[in-house]
């Protein structure tokens, strides 16, 4: 069964704040839900499908349904880290196509700045079977991605200056986003001169830590037709996972090699057709490897691909993360993910900031990378259209 045209994104909302004092995680989930429903022209009473991941408190969909006062007939708490919410769009489209719901709400929220809390969902790893073989070596999140970057440099000659180009492009975009956490434009040299956190990655190769959240409302074609708001059709979806593979891990690719081709095939388009791409950017290397895996360039050519402003809107070869991305704008709950879909929807509705709006944006891709590149991770790719 193809999901092409099976569902539409009717509402998208990103919390405007990056530090949210005097609030709870459940409260922010409910606030972004209200925002996305209002954007769609719908209300909580219309929701019959609810999706959340490891950042939701308590029993996930059970706790949040109670808090928000909804009674969905379909729930899903698929957890693949920062890619969860892009998988949720796929699962929402599947559930809608199967007739299990018509109005699916997806929420993400977290308060890592205000609360000092660690990675959402991390508490569940205490009894993981690999825990004593991985967790006692001081491998911070950035250290895992640094090893991927180091191996990519070794195999393909990728340079720190090339990785820095990714941060530069994000910062060029973020200057136009009044809500962005970092709005200052940075140069390649400034990235390279920022302190090393885990070599070869610098402070400015890393995403921001922000409070915040976002929500999406995915609806059936019938509901979409009944709404005044411009609804964005889902054209293609793909999920992939990758893990240590019995001690044979390869750090130079991600599960995007699986999720990307599935999404492109379902949508019936190719990478060269994409007008705008939201690429998950926990670190600069996360973007570079995903661009290769998704087929925007050949494996190993990512470093050359991102040079000369290729990622900069509106006229680069592949404008990316025009909200400033996780690198500059927002990475709520230490994962983001949903913000990738939100900015793709803005672009397709012609509602991005005029300075970064891609002219005639008809096809957009939103891609998530969850978990850790250095161990186990989930990739999710979504292709959206301005119209079906």
């Amino acid at each position, binding site marked *: 069964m193809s999901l092409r045209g099976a569902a539409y994104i009717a509402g998208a909302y990103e919390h405007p704040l990056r530090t949210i004092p005097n609030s709870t995680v459940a409260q922010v989930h409910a606030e972004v839900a209200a925002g996305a429903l209002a954007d769609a022209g719908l209300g909580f009473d219309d929701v019959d499908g609810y999706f959340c991941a490891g950042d939701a408190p308590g029993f996930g969909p059970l706790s949040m349904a109670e808090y928000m006062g909804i009674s969905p007939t379909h729930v899903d708490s698929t957890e693949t880290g920062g890619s969860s919410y892009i998988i949720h769009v796929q699962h929402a489209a599947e559930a809608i196509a199967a007739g299990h719901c018509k109005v699916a709400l997806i929420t993400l929220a977290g308060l890592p700045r205000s609360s000092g809390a660690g990675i959402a969902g991390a508490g569940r790893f205490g009894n993981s*079977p*690999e825990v*004593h*073989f*991985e*967790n*006692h*070596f*001081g*491998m*911070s999140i*950035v*250290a895992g991605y*640094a*090893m*991927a970057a*180091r*191996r990519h440099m*070794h195999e393909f000659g990728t340079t720190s200056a090339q990785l820095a180009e990714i941060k530069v492009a994000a910062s060029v975009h973020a200057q136009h986003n009044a809500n962005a956490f970092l709005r200052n434009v940075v140069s390649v040299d400034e990235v390279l001169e920022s*302190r*090393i*956190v*885990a*070599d*070869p*990655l610098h402070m400015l190769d890393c995403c921001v830590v922000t409070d915040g959240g976002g929500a999406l409302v995915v609806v059936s074609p019938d509901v979409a037709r009944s709404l005044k708001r411009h609804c964005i059709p889902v054209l293609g979806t793909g999920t992939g996972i990758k893990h*240590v593979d*019995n*001690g*044979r*891990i390869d*750090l130079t690719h991600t599960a995007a090699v699986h999720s990307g081709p599935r999404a492109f095939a379902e949508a019936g388009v190719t990478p060269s057709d994409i007008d705008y791409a939201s690429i998950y950017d926990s670190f600069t290397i996360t973007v570079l490897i995903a661009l290769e895996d998704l087929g925007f360039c050949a494996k190993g050519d990512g470093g050359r691909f991102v040079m000369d402003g290729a990622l900069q809107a509106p006229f680069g070869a592949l404008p990316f993360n025009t909200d400033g991305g996780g690198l500059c704008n927002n990475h709520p709950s230490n994962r983001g993910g949903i913000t990738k879909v939100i900015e793709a929807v803005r672009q397709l509705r012609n509602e991005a900031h005029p300075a970064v709006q891609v002219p005639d944006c008809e096809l957009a891709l939103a891609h998530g990378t969850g978990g850790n590149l*250095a*161990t186990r991770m989930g990739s999710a790719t979504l292709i959206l259209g301005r119209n079906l």
Partner: protein
Amino acid sequence: MTSQLPLADIEPTIENQPFWDALRDNRIDLPYCQRCRSFVWYPRAICPLCHQGGLTWRTLPGTGHVYSQTVVTKGTGRWKDAGPYVVAYVQLDSGIDSVDGPRILTNIVGDNALNVSIGSFVCSVVDRSDDANRFILRFALA
């Protein structure tokens, strides 16, 4: 040898107890699937290639080379003040012709650890606390 890096309390499970028993005696023992001619990493009771049990434990030579590494300047949690330290994936030698050892997460320790690079040859080090109750598998440059 004892590095200054943090050591944690290990809670072996019934699946991986032989690994920790061998490591206490300075050996690297891993489950081996004779059907697949493959070591199983991380240690567990079922081979992820053929999905069957009945694995045997074999001792590896304790040598290998670095697949990738990073020097962490600033760690987090208990590792906050441990830097600079080296986190690495080491490809273990299997000791068996035409069988690859697994790539495993570890630290490179020793006075010259920061000189590590991809391809560096390394030897196993059982890093122990003073009372020897805490220990873990790390590596030093060969």
